[in-house]
């Protein structure tokens, strides 16, 4: 879908329909202690991914490539840009898959956790190297603890002890 995103320096007009206002993604990170698992669900605007894909794949749009090619692209992007450290050790990201939801791509990936961590660090640069206004929200849930973090290119990580 040729839907372009806003916030250009010269014109801050919003148009009246359908264009999302911000470069933004949201990732829900849930630490399930009894399952020894950290489940991550990322929601990313399709057209933002599309414009990145176009740039790196000489003009092909996502609409015309096959699903496995897209999945591979997405898997790589998440692997490079979403990192989880437990007690300063980078954890192995297990990519589960992705699905479309209207104009959003929902991505699923997981980390296996063996011992209870003292410190968790999350570094999320999804789309940031492509879009400098990109903001990534991380909703962290550990049992009853719930907190949201807003990450930008200047501050793309946070710690939770």
């Amino acid at each position, binding site marked *: *879908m*040729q*839907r*372009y995103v*806003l*916030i*250009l*320096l*010269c*014109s*801050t*007009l*919003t*148009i*009246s*329909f*359908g*264009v*999302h*206002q*911000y470069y933004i993604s*949201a990732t829900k990170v*849930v630490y399930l202690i009894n399952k020894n698992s950290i*489940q*991550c*669900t990322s*929601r990313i605007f*399709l057209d933002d991914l599309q414009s990145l894909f176009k*740039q790196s794949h000489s003009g092909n*749009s996502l*609409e*015309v490539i096959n699903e496995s090619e897209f999945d591979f692209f997405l898997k790589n992007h998440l692997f490079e840009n979403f990192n989880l450290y437990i007690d300063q050790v980078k954890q192995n990201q297990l990519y*589960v*898959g992705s*699905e*479309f939801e*209207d*104009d959003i791509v*929902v991505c*699923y990936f*997981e980390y296996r956790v063996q011992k209870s961590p003292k410190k968790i660090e999350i570094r999320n640069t999804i789309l940031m*190297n*492509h*879009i*400098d206004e990109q903001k990534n*929200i991380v*909703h962290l849930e550990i049992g009853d603890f719930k907190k*949201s973090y*807003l990450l930008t*290119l*200047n501050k793309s990580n946070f710690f939770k002890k």
Partner: protein
Amino acid sequence: MINLMRYNRVLNFICFFSFLVIIAQDSAEIEKGGKSSNKFKQLYEEFSTPNKYRAASGAPGEDYYHQKVDYVIDVELDEKNSILYGTEKITYTNNSPDDLEYLWIQLDQNIRKKDAPALEKNPSKATNLKQIEKFVDEVLLKPFDGGFNIEYVRDVNGKPLKKIINNTMMLIDLPVPLKSGDKYIFSIKWKYSINNHVTKRGRSGYEFFPEDGNKAYIIAQFFPRLAVYNDVEGWQNHQFWGNGEFALNFGDYEVNITVPADHIIEATGELQNPKEVLSKVEMNRYKKALTSFDKPVIIVSQQEVEEKEKVISEKKKTWSFIAKNVRDFGFATSRKFIWDMMAVPFKGRNVIASSLYPKEGNPLWEEFSTQVVAHALKVYSKYTFDYPYPKAVSVHAKNQGMEYPMICWNYGRPEKDGSYSDRVKYGMISVIIHEVGHNFFPMIVNSDERQWGWMDEGLDTFVQYLTEQEFMPNYPSRRGSPSKIVPYMSGNQSFISPIMSNPENIHQLGPNAYGKPATALNILRETIMGKELFDFAFKTYSQRWMFKHPTPEDFFRTIEDASAIDLDWFWRGWFYSTDFVDIGIKNFKRYYISSEPSDKVDNILEGYGISKNELSPLVFMVSDQDKSFDSDLKEGNPVDKSFPLKQFLKENYSDEDIEKIKLSNFFYEIEFEKPGGLVMPVIIELTYSDGSKENIKYPVQIWRKNNNSFKKLLVSEKEIINVALDPNKETADVNLLNNNWPKKEILSKFDIYKSKIKN
């Protein structure tokens, strides 16, 4: 006597036992007074007092007025330099009871002046890396220098008028105040440079097509327009900062547009001189289209356009349009435009539906656009009023979605090879429905967009949802159904504002002004009011305020006035707060009739020093969660368990009636909790042991005296094995983990997806 009094005291004591304990605990601290935070408190503090302009019923009051502003405009396009030259004669009619010392004129183009404050309204920062095009555009190139160049403002005799320009507003100081009821005629001459709307954004401008060197223009906010003066704001001269759209007056327009002779134009209003501007062939097709009801007639074809693209005409033509009772005027012009048109019948008259699109929009546009326009007009008319204007046009512009009276710009472009995905197709159909729908809100029901974005966007998105669902079953609507608003409403509160906020000052305009109000109205219609009452009230609002200027209160009041449903709690929660819905099942107990009182009753009696023998006949009930619960109670006929009850029945009822009573064997107490701030009706689905189901709906008023929890006794003839709260997900409940008894493990999206791919 003494015995009876004592008995009553004990009975009272038992009934209020738990209540008294709570009071006793709380009284340890001295309570402070405060204002009412009751969710059902009426909105007197938020609403202004009704008056003669706006009635308490939500209808226009007996002294309701609005100003009328008529325009005669001549514009000429310099295509080579993309400059628009214009002169206009304005006739301003002061229908207000006030004398006006000055007039305010809106200069929206001034937001594109190179030194406009709006360019600096957001923070910016240096970054380590940036896209090349953006770096060049934003950092290296100087800002685009647009904005109105006002050559003169003159009175009817040609004498210059004193003017003061404040950013996007221009004051005209009248030599003598304009009396109530009088007219004032004056004229303005201006020019401005047109921006490229693809790179510079904005709601109007041109798209440049490098392959053939042509441009397609979508032109709006192109002339100085009168600001609104009314009973609510005085002059609505809040500056144009970019997000808050427009507040505009109704009036009659005569607009003459001079463009290169090979251009095709569509605009607000009826074309006055088709014979002068169209070729003979085009004219014949145009006439045919006026009575083509089943499918559009192509007036200018793709093949013809491809030929026209190669040569640029040096000649000029002037197209004339007249529009009655509109609040604005827009037009689109290019030699690249393919044009198709059809007629839509409306009780004894035909409305024209038409589309303009460059070949880059095909094959998608030829197939869908005009048909979607016709569909939108029909469905919106059904829910509001018959579309009163003579035409509606959809123009394809690469990444625009923007509305003007009778004309709108819409996105949805196929790939270069003509292929397109479902996403592009439905995106295009949705945006056309939405923008055509804006004819109803705010073009005709003329709300103030500068102040209240939701009044047109929210109402339009709501009817858009209905129109999409009527376009085809299970249409993939992006907004409207309750579950779609849950991520927004359950999100980080620091990025959420109440719907009743100015569009300039909020974080997420899309869900705030479009999605949430549309969902709220959908919930009102489906769950709270019912379709018949809601549709009647919504239509009443539309018809009361058709060709008038409503405020939010006029909407809120009318919906209640036409339905006899007090909705102050709903407006307060959904429109004035950022609360969300979370209602849950806290406890569920089965009760049994017993000959003996439960341990709880025993404790009370003991505390009072009363023996059981002193009590008059009572029915005792014991729950399966009480300490004194004995599983023997499960067996046998419940009536047999209580001698006083059996005795009472025998004395007062026939054997036949008693037989019936025996069937009701199942007593339950269900307790609900409400962690969320919003009050909503409580809908539960009971599943019985034989597999049958029953739905119960408790009115929202159940929360009026206790905002946190309540209990209900359920008496049933069959065993209840499952209770589900909001089983059809119609209330936008953000937390489904507490919605079932027995507690059901709700699979997260993650788990659902994972199990799906495993299979």
